[in-house]
């Protein structure tokens, strides 16, 4: 949806992830970019250069926060220090919405720093939704949950991944950060039809879309964010845009990061799909 309550009623275009190898280029050349996504944890600090650079970016660009360690799906309660620091950052960036992953990664106070897959059970959906609500209420901004790439499925699962996603977002009444690359990766790893997934997502809840590249191994695919987006993922993106309309889209490129222009050009390829969505909406 172009603007909805899950993205703060904004109408953002195509963004890219703010990464340190590009800082100099961005601050000196001031390229035209619709918006940047930052990894919240990189700026949940007390001072120093990262915050100075962030403030310079904020003077000129729109910024949206994306987290990697809230672990909505962890059975334990949210870490209060994490929440406090996150809220401080939210007040600094004035991000219109905030996203993190539909996954878990910590237990008993120990962190794996990974995006571990959820068991798709009703108990997990209930616990996860409760945590999403708690975080949103504390931060006082819309929250969107992102589907992750996964390499394992659990015996205890009671539903498909997309059914689980729907169960969580309905219970939490939150938005979705739809990562079409993650859907593709998981569909290959678990042998399901990615279009069934895309077609099952409640379109009205999609706050943002992620696109990215990945690495293919002999028996599985890894979500590495170190390549351009492949055609099958663009086709999924096209279908997603067809369903949800002109939606804020972000290219993730986190490893073997090429030049700023190369990353931006790759992201701007999304324009051809967004343009047709705008045309369809106009007609």
């Amino acid at each position, binding site marked *: 949806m172009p603007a909805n309550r899950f993205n703060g009623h904004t109408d953002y275009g195509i963004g890219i992830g703010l990464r340190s190898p590009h800082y100099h280029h961005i601050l000196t050349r001031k390229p035209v970019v619709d918006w940047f996504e930052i990894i919240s*944890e*990189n*700026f*949940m*600090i*007390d*001072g*120093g*250069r*990262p*915050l*100075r650079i962030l403030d310079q970016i904020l003077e000129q660009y729109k910024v949206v926060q994306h987290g990697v*360690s*809230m672990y909505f799906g*962890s*059975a*334990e309660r949210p*870490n209060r*220090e*994490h929440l406090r*620091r996150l809220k401080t950052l939210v007040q600094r960036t004035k991000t219109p919405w905030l996203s993190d992953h539909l996954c*878990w990664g*910590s*237990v*008993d*106070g*120990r*962190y*794996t*720093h*990974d995006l*571990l897959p959820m*068991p798709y*059970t009703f*108990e*997990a959906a209930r*616990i996860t939704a409760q945590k999403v609500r708690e975080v949103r209420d504390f931060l006082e901004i819309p929250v969107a949950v992102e589907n992750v790439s996964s*390499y*394992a*499925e*659990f*015996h*205890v699962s009671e539903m498909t991944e997309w059914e689980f996603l729907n169960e969580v977002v309905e219970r939490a009444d939150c938005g979705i950060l739809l990562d079409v690359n993650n859907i593709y990766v998981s569909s290959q*790893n*678990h*042998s399901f039809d990615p279009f069934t997934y895309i077609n099952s997502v409640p379109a009205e809840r999609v706050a943002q879309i992620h696109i990215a590249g990945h690495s293919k191994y002999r*028996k*599985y695919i*890894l979500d590495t964010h170190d390549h351009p987006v492949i055609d099958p993922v663009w086709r999924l993106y096209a279908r997603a845009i067809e369903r949800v309309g002109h939606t804020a889209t972000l290219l993730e490129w986190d490893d073997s990061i090429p030049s700023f222009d190369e990353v931006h050009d790759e992201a701007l390829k999304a324009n051809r799909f967004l343009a047709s969505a705008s045309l369809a909406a106009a007609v």
Partner: protein
Amino acid sequence: MKLLSLQRRMARAVMTPLTRAERMRPVAPDGRSMRAAASAIIKPNDRLTSFERLEIYNRQYWFRVLSAFAEDFPGVRAVLGGRRFDAMAKAYLIDCPSQSFTLRNLGSRLVSWLQKHPSWAGSRQNLAVDMARLEWADIEAFDGLREPSLKPEDLTGVNPAKLRLHLQPYVSLLALRYPVDDLLLEVRKDSDDLDVASNTFSERHKRKRVAAVAQLKPSAIFLAVHRLDEDVYFRRLDREEFAILTALHAGKTLNAAIEAALRGSSIALADRAAHVEKWFHTWSALGWFCRLDSAPKRNSTASRR
């Protein structure tokens, strides 16, 4: 199976150390069968067994934390050598897994852990501990809090006998047995060169760095690790300078700190006032003191660079 129980079982498996060949162990160090652990919770598919699917996460965990740890402690790596450092890193991360939402804090317990486990550094124990202290102070200085700095006018009418000055939270004071600041700068220079150099050039620098470590002799230094214009610096201090700053940091009044630091000093009595004035001028210019009404706090739950 309840969510918490499943997550405990999976996390335990994911954090189990890898084999030397960086594969998942068939049997965990405590005797658990990893195949049974995987089969109990994870479905196989037409290409991968439960064990192989769990192994993807097990390997990713170790690759991630080991690479983050090595990135933060290149100096300790130079001191111990690559192979010993890698073994030490695994042992440390088994004993001290991350307890923070950010990888930035992964090495926060390395100094105390190394002190309790001297066998990892052997004859270079003191050198390794000194280097770990310096590298952790560097992380703290990089993104520590900066309180409003003290200005000369803030001291108008203040009684020095009662005045307590507080150091900026990002400043660390280190009394070290080895001149590890020089060594760390050399290691970093070497690392920067590697980005652009040919193999021959890199090899020459590597040998030079190894030689520097081998020849490093004990030589006590006093160091302030601090930040200026968002860059981190290592500033060597005189013994008396260090003593004054340490006393101030411990909460002593200005007069008491100066008096204690200069007791037994080799600086001639007639020269002491000039020295103190010069030191305070430098520290103030560097912004090391917080304004009197700023409540200093040290924090170590921030992000990685």
